[in-house]
């Protein structure tokens, strides 16, 4: 009894100190053993070794028209080994034109902190990565000798950062699948009221993610976060064969904080009504003229068109278009706009954000980065891969398990120094339509996402895929249209941003790029753009289904 009491008194003190968890300790022991031996016997020798384990406990349920169609629960741990041979000046991660380093494998490791099972796996993965790393380093050295180096892009391969020690517990998730199943049945059944839809679904996912990271530099960290999300999707096909989709999602840190049924039902109605209306909406014609992007749409627009081009690693990739590489200190946006990336921000305007973390995937502490101040480009999003003039990481080295880190976005925030109310912004659009003598302008209410090419061989262009778009006539009348894609080139598009509203819109989602899928957010006020180019969507020509949908009446 006495002993237990003593323990109870000591425990809080222990918990306060960053005590490595069982897994961090096991990883650190095996890291020391491998690193020391390879430094002793290896040729070439490693100068850096890290082990990252990502633990994911996830739940997902999907419902269609009142019935559950999938119900899954998973628990996984993925191991990624990163090893650097040579020196920070030139190592096995050095960029070679058109060839990405690919060492990480996301190997499954024991779900329990069992030293034997984990160490064996870590050891064999380390051996596998060492072999690949030596081979790639040899290739790089040969490549260096035969090719003329582009002087301006000669930067080190790995930055020096101070090691971190932290042990931040991940909040537990209480996920009751019976309760959620009952809710989803009821919610998804609501789509039955909209017979013109071909497919619909309502799903909920929740995940508790814990990341463990140890490195030969002494970093020992454990941190993580919970996620929860509701997704609403609907599909239909217009008479001319065009496939149409609409959707909405809600994100929260915990399933408990997801919205109440009433709010979700309203979203379902919006998704279904938008889609039903789109089926009969007229097609767009190619157009250049003024447009408003809603806050969410503007967020996605900035993420795609701007965000991907200021990722640090692109500035040293010979194959990249490098739109902004030499624009530091220059004006890249109208002077009333600033862009911040803030992975330390957990929520804004009462809404949980997707793109936050405590440490990035190289164990570098997350921090706020002022990327564009009053229109002037100040820096890039940096991982530990330095570029000339930017020798350090700013905590944006990210990846999904099994991929290699590159610099990625977090919470993108577009800030406007001068704003107008939403209503005023619409008035300004009407004025701009008249000024330019255009028959109409556009209002982009929602965007699914988009894509952009940053490669030098491709066109430096983007395409954004809007969901809900209105044609706005000079008299203020709005008409829903379909088949519009937003296209353009990045530099010219930014120059034409005329005004911003005072209401930020939030987009939470997952971004896919070289290093896999990572959670991100984009926050922006609505923007009035003086000139936007719209092109016709590439569409399917398949006819809608030949037979009517089955009904409860049985065989007809």
């Amino acid at each position: 009894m006495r002993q237990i009491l003593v323990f109870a008194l000591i425990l809080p003190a222990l918990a306060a100190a960053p005590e490595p968890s069982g897994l961090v300790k096991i990883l650190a022991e095996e890291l020391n053993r491998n690193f020391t031996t390879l430094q002793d016997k290896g040729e070439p020798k490693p100068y850096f070794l890290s082990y990252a384990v990502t633990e994911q406990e996830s739940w997902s349920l999907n419902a269609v028209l009142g019935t559950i169609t999938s119900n899954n629960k998973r628990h996984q741990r993925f191991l990624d080994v990163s090893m650097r041979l040579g020196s920070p000046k030139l190592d096995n991660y050095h960029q070679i034109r058109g060839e990405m380093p690919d060492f990480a494998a996301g190997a499954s490791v024991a779900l329990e902190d069992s030293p034997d099972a984990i160490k064996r796996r870590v050891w064999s993965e380390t051996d596998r990565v060492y072999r690949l790393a030596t081979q790639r380093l040899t290739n790089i050295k040969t490549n260096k000798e035969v090719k003329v180096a582009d002087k301006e892009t000669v930067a080190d391969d790995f930055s020096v950062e101070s090691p971190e020690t932290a042990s931040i517990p991940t909040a537990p998730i209480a996920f009751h699948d019976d309760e959620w199943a009952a809710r989803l049945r009821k919610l998804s059944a609501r789509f039955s009221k909209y017979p013109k839809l071909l497919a619909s679904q309502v799903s909920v996912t929740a995940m508790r993610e814990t990341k463990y990271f140890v490195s030969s530099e002494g970093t020992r960290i454990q941190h993580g976060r919970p996620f929860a999300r509701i997704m609403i999707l609907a599909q239909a096909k217009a008479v001319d064969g065009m496939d149409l989709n609409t959707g909405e999602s809600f994100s929260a840190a915990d399933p408990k904080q997801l919205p109440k049924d009433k709010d979700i039902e309203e979203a379902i109605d919006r998704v279904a009504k938008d889609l039903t209306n789109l089926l009969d909406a007229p097609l767009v014609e190619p157009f250049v003229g003024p447009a408003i992007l809603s806050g969410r749409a503007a967020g996605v627009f900035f993420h795609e068109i701007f965000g991907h081009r200021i990722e640090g690693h692109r500035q040293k990739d010979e194959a990249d278009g490098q739109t902004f590489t030499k624009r530091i200190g220059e004006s890249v946006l109208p002077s009333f706009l600033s862009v911040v990336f803030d992975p330390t921000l957990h929520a804004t305007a009462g809404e949980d954000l997707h793109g936050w973390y405590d440490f990035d995937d190289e164990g570098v502490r997350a921090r706020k980065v002022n990327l564009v101040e009053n229109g002037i480009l100040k820096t890039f999003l940096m991982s530990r891969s330095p570029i000339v003039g930017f020798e350090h990481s700013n905590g944006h080295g990210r990846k999904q398990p099994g991929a290699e880190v590159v610099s990625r976005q977090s919470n993108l925030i577009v800030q406007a120094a001068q704003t107008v109310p939403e209503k005023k912004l619409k008035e300004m659009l009407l004025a701009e339509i008249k000024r330019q003598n255009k028959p109409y302008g556009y209002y982009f209410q929602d965007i699914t996402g988009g894509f952009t090419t940053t490669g030098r061989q491709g066109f430096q262009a983007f395409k954004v895929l809007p969901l809900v778009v209105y044609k706005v006539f000079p008299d203020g009348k709005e008409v829903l249209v379909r088949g519009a894609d937003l296209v353009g080139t990045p530099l010219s598009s930014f120059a034409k941003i005329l005004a911003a509203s005072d209401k930020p819109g939030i987009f939470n989602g997952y971004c896919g790029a070289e290093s896999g899928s990572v959670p991100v957010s984009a926050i922006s006020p609505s923007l009035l753009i003086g000139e936007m180019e719209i092109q016709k969507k590439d569409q399917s020509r398949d006819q809608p289904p030949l037979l009517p949908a089955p009904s409860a009446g049985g065989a007809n």
Partner: protein
Amino acid sequence: MNFSRREFAALLAAARALGAQNSANSEQPNDEIMQALIEELERSKSLKLSNLPSPYFIEYALDDTYSLSVSCVLGALISSNAAKSRLPRVQLRVGSNEFDNSNYVFSQLFGGRMGGGRIPLEAGPIVMRREFWLATDRAYKGALQAIARKRAALQNVTQQEKLNDFAKAEPVRYIEPKQAIQIDQAAWTARTRRISSVFSRFPDVLNSGVEFSAGFATSYLANTDGAAYRISDNLFSLRLRADGQAANGMPIHDAVVYAGRNLADLPSEEVMTKGAEEIAANVSALLKAPAAEDYSGPVLFEGIASPQLFVQLLGAQLAPIRKPVSEPGRPVPMSSSELEGRMGSRILPEWMDAVDDPTQSTYKGHALFGSYPVDAEGIKPMPLKVIEKGTLKHFLLGRTPIRGFEGSNGRARLPGPFGGSMATFSNLFVKANQTVSREELRKKLIEMVQQRSKPYGLIIRKLDLPVTASAQELRTLSQASGQRGGGPIVSLPILVYKVYPDGREELVRGLRFRGVNARSLRDIFAAADDEVIFDYIGQGGTLATLSPSGYVSTHTVCSPSILFEDLELEKRTDDWPNLPLVPPPALTSKL
């Protein structure tokens, strides 16, 4: 043709009666899955796009599954997943039995495949029918495109042989009672964990794993010919693997799979634990075994090595694959069966027969693994004496005609690559009418060695079939079968022993077969009176078409130990990876 209203009404009544029966003894009031399939099937027959033809055949299938998989390493849990899923399939044909949209390289390019994930896991007939409705619509439009492209591809080609595309068949209705799903997940997890901890005692084993998998499936099928079935199609397995690396770098591998169609068919934990110890001991022994040299001479396949050899050289060859129509000048690289075109020829010695029998459920107390009441096309199978007195008498066929043969004998087991199904063997009994005892057979081997003044002969006791092979070996196999273009190669032998004239045995490593193929079977010299039973999980046909669909098939092969007078094995000359610079971590757990 197709099925009449009256037949349909009868089917529907059968489905409903089934429900009525069930309601008496289970909580399920109705078999709404079968009813939904049949109702939607009936509706889909009226599909018609402008003046183009309606489908002449539609088939719906659905596998209602509950699966549990548990994976452990050295006593620790790596993953544990339980999931319910319902996997739908639609097959739709336009044209006629003589010429339709199947058997064309791009048969499945149009229209897309149907995925699971949107079929209700619970009561929801309308939602289920909606998925079949949309999939059928896609399949119909895809079929119309495919048949048009196929006609165009044949326009400037003179076909050497015109084969029909789809054989007519007697529809069968077969409804099994619904099974109850019962499995003790905690107990199986604990058992898997305990068995995996066996390898903690073998530090030479660098990598090991144990995977338990339980799959309960109820398969449904209904088609417009009037066939309908509901059968239980379960598969349970425990897979064990152990890997090491010899001093010269050669990877050493052994594995064993215990499998059954009923949970009760799996052996006891004691037997499986012994199996783990055995493969670990084999790896340890192989690490120390000397590397073998090239060999040509008598070889004895003893124990499961014999049925394993028959899996690859006979079973997998008995169902030739129909070559699809290809685009002119762009033939499809496909290895066909080694037995194609050899009907009526001698395949085995005159004193040997082979029977493929899916109808038998047990043999000498062993639950047979390859049995089924109806095949994947709803055809009732019959036993077939595929080889009589050494001569090839039958191929195993589904409804897809092959050169010279049309008409199913109920062997369609898997979804096929070009719009049809794929046939394969079931329970294959290879019988010898002249036998000696196992000891006698071994003596004969030694006599041959002595007569020919060979320093030693070889006994092979285990092969590394694809189901157990390492990923690396699978890559080698598929590359090899692709390169050679014809016929599979036999998997690597795992356990090979030199037998010296004085009877002494010595385990060796590092051999592979050279030039061993289906023709080699003609030269079997003698057979033992043992009947060795081997259960095998197939991954869809021959090695060249390895696992295209992700579906597996189940087989049992029963055959005697066999002696060859002359076979060749060669030394493996691959470049082996260096040994790791860092020695493996010490194993610390106390057992």
